[in-house]
């Protein structure tokens, strides 16, 4: 198997890498770029810990080939964190006690961000649907739900009507 070049934007930075055709996006992000906030929990697209945003949409990086991401924009948890402070979803997860062991947290936060970007005022069911692709074994999800609601409330500008 020969390596092939792939180009994409990862966390705002253009990268060109040589990868094998069977290299997953997860492997590329972790091994080649050292983005260890992308977790590997099940390797079969079930647990949601490897979730990253591809052109704003949550994808399971363990089931996405690096070559499939050619030309796309990838956002990982490292890229979500602003230079100063935290993204409102990150802050809400801290304030609402939505973080326990933390292994599912990056995927949960990225899925929540994608939801709020496309639907700034989601219903409880909208949140549950958006996060149903991620397992959390610690929290029972109650405080994760609270956190996303709180982030949405903080996000929505009342003047938007």
């Amino acid at each position, binding site marked *: 198997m020969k390596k092939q070049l792939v180009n994409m934007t990862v966390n705002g930075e253009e990268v060109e890498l040589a990868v094998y055709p069977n290299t997953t996006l997860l492997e590329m992000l*972790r091994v080649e770029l050292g983005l260890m906030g992308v977790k590997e*929990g*099940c390797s079969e697209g079930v647990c949601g810990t490897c979730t990253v945003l591809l052109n704003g949409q949550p994808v399971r990086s363990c089931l996405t080939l690096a070559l499939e991401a050619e030309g796309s924009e990838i956002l990982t948890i490292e890229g979500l964190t602003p230079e100063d402070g935290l993204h409102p979803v990150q802050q809400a997860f801290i304030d609402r006690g939505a973080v326990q062991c933390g292994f599912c947290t*990056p995927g949960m936060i990225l899925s929540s961000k994608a939801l709020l970007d496309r639907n700034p005022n989601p219903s409880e069911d909208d949140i549950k649907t958006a996060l149903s692709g991620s397992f959390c074994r610690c929290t*029972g999800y109650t405080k994760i739900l609270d956190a996303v609601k709180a982030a949405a409330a903080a996000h929505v500008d009342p003047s938007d009507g």
Partner: protein
Amino acid sequence: MRLSVHERLEDLILAEEGYTLVGKSIPRIDARSKVTGEAVFTADLELPRMLAGKVLRSPYPHARIVNIDTSRAKKLRGVYAVVTGQDTAGEKWGVFRYTRDQQLLCVDKVRYVGDEVAAVAAANDDVAQEALSLIQVEYEELPGVFDCWSSIAPDAPLIHDEFPRNVNVEVKIDVGDVEAAFKKCALVREDTFVAEEDSYFMTEPYAVVANSHADGSVEVWMPNASPHTKAKALSNALRIPLSKVNVRKITIGGAFGGRSDVFPAEFITCLLTLRTGRPVKLIYTREENSIATRKGHAMITTHKTGVDNEGRVLARDTVSYLDGGAYSSTGPIATSVPFLCHEQTYRLPNVRFTGYRIYTNKPIAGMIRIHGRSFACGVDTQLDMIAEELGIDPVTIRLRNARQPGETTPTGSHVASCGLTECIEKTAKESNFLEKFKNHQPGRGIGMGINSVQTGFPLGIRGGSQAFIKFHEDGGATVNSGVVDNGQGNDHMLVQIAAEELGLGVEDVRLISADTEITATDAGSYSMISTFAGGNAVKRAAEDAKMQLFEIASDILEADPSDLVARDKKIFVKGAPDVGVSIAKVVRKGLIMGRPIMGKGAFNPDVDQRREWITNPKGQLSQAFSFGATVTEVEVDTDTGMVKAETVTCAQDCGFAVNPMIVEGQFEGGVAMGGQGGMLGEEHRWHKGYCLNPSMLEYKMPTIADMPRINSIIVESIDPVGPYGAKEAGMSIAMSAAQAYCCAVGHALGIYFNHYPLTSERVLDAIENKKEGIQTAWDFPPARFIELEKKE
């Protein structure tokens, strides 16, 4: 003198007024590194020249190893080491000296599908995988046994030659006179309850990184519940001094009982780094995490219970069979704990428990968060059956039998603090239990479970917890503790307590923990002990440091040290906060005077050290016990058998909530794992020893969309010894949630369920074959005494 609940509450309110940090919902100190992805888990570690480790596992449930040929694997380019049982002298692991039955790499036999046979270290995962395929193992297949009944059959093949009838552990407890008491009972009934294996599925798969050094030492990182236990076991197995095994701190992605034991993985990874002189990383696949770490026990429990005409239990005789899998693991503990939780929860004047842990050719069973589903759910289901026969409601019968403070359990543990009655009353009131129970709507049900857990028991390592505190010139402090954080928030708990005592903010306190070289000793974060022991040790270290600060400050403030207070980074005379001196200044003065502030503290729970799981199961087991009650409301679709949980109301006497937000998080997680998952869907399925659902796809765990509304009620009995009165958070909810879900589904359908979890197939089967009268849904053969030949 024992205080009434009302007086305790007043006491609590007074106490809370005096606290600045404990009792408050402060965000966790580790949350920031977890929301940014900075937190480093074991698989995230990268070291120069690191090799990839992989394990070759048995494809057979039971087979003799005839020959292992590693020559082709060793020749493969990029392979640096291949190890087998021949490299380990058959070194065995067991939690206790008398349970050392697991070879860390199999030498003569394999006993389950997944048993470790060989391992490689190679340049990368692909080469390691190819090397495994080149190892040729010749097996001679042996007949296997895959459930308790076939395993104890007189003609069954023996899994370990020295254990007749495959009985690995036998626990016998007999208190009072059970037979005589049964004769005095108004009602006696016997029912049998069966539960399949549940599993942890912590989101982080198991992983180990080990690195050897020229001085002969080894550094090891892995998810663990006790770094010191791991270090001790590795020191023994590798035959290198304890001082040369350094287990390091690492972020841990969940445990739930599944990281307490020692696994061949860490031994193998150490062996590979010692062989190659290079760091080695072994990451388990999800399937390996399921079959080759631990899982819960399948369990058959027969409860024979006798009551007086008011439903008070006068006698109970229980026999349990636990399917232990291939090796002992925590067997003596695992066999005892379902009973011990039960004897803490309910008053039992006469009780007999006979527990058998039985070897089978299946993966190894260990302790899990909802340990003993068939036992606990059986107790509460049977209590509901008795209540119906006697015309009593489920709340009243539980209140009549509930443990009270000041009592002693049948095996001799004094219960100093107990808010169980308050938990039952509050959950019943909040959920409007009695009205919903009596005005029963078809397909809708409400059920209550109650339970109790320990705050610590010995697991091969004793000695409580120690802590040190040092100060920095800016007035900040560093806490040094051996307590490990599996994700539940132990790191934060230690810091919140230290900051409270020292008058600092949590941001002023740094923490070094869970490193066997650098930190103080601690028994480990299993058995719900960390707040009780580790928290107390840090509190005492902080009190010691504070007294040193006060002695120096007393000169500056010209006041008696006993009149001083530390708060808001200052030390001042009580009632005069405006004329204080900063802690930073006191610290610097101490340095100039040659009296640096160095606090130390230790806490060792006051338990009966003579107590032993099998040979002497009596005496004080744990110094404090938590108690919980859960009420679940469900709706059952009788066409599909699907259960929808709508509302869960749970209350736990956690002693004192050091951080209510974290305590609630433990309750909610407990409801998800114990009730929603544990009772409605989670079970492993098997075919002749092969696990059919080791993955997250087929093992059915709850997602966010499945979860009901959860109302959490914190009950605080203020334990006399726990730090600020704290005991433990969440475990008695996890257990009672399973019972509550079970009883609620039963109430919805008028069926007493006795096979768990309540999957839609089982629910439908019970509906279709519904029995008349007060009977369990299915007839199972009862678990009975096993006649064993006396060991020589």
